[in-house]
């Protein structure tokens, strides 16, 4: 009986890990320098979540880490007792902030239900970039 309980607990733990880590896959994007033909890469972890971690390599080769967060744009809503509730966020506006050594990159973006979209970025050195999700 004790062995059965132990196996059940392991099964629950493995299922929970798979469920939480596998629901929302990572989403890749490209970061383009708008003044020179250079391209970098960004990965949004668990991209279907409303917020999360991100890693990037800037067009110049700098490695960056940061976070993204979103708010709803177009949404399916219901009015429950007068209070507005969002059923589904069809599109979102978001902000990604990356720290790249001594520099900071901030990207505003828009994306849809499948985490596809685009954005514009600027860094603390005055450079501008375009962000395109793949």
């Amino acid at each position: 009986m004790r062995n059965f309980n132990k196996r059940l607990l392991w099964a629950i733990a493995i299922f929970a890990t798979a469920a939480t880590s596998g629901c929302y896959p990572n989403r890749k994007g490209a970061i383009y320098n708008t003044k020179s033909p250079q391209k970098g890469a960004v990965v949004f972890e668990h991209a279907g979540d409303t917020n999360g971690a991100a890693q990037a390599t800037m067009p110049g080769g700098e490695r960056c880490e940061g976070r993204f967060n979103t708010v709803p744009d177009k949404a399916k809503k219901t009015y429950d007792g007068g209070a507005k509730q969002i059923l589904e966020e069809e599109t979102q506006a978001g902000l990604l902030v990356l720290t790249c050594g001594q520099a900071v990159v901030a990207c505003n973006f828009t994306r849809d239900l499948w985490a596809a979209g685009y954005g514009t970025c600027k860094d603390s050195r005055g450079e501008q970039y375009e962000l395109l999700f793949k």
Partner: protein
Amino acid sequence: MAAVVALAGTVALLGGGCANKQSARIYSLSSGKAATFDVDSATDNHGALRGTLPSGEQCTGDFSASASDETRLSATFPYPAASAEAGVVVLNCGAQVLQCVLARRPGQGFSFGSCKDQHGAEYAMMF
């Protein structure tokens, strides 16, 4: 029984307080440096902020929020956020004054924001 009621009350108070308080990182888009801000009553229509600018100045301020302030959000962020709420903030930081717009889901804490000081220096805020 009284102890159980007291414990439940304490848990409810602590839980309520924590849920309504948020911390944010503010990033200078001029210097690349970051600092931390705290927001009280983050899910309410108005509340207080306090923190430090990346340059070291201490700041205090207030926010006031309204539902689906698309005009304000569109003026601040390049992409529309029609189903979000906007919180307008004024921060007094010694000789500096920052105006910020924060965005959030209805009934929830803030997600991110954008600020500008009186000289035009820009900041990004991430919750």
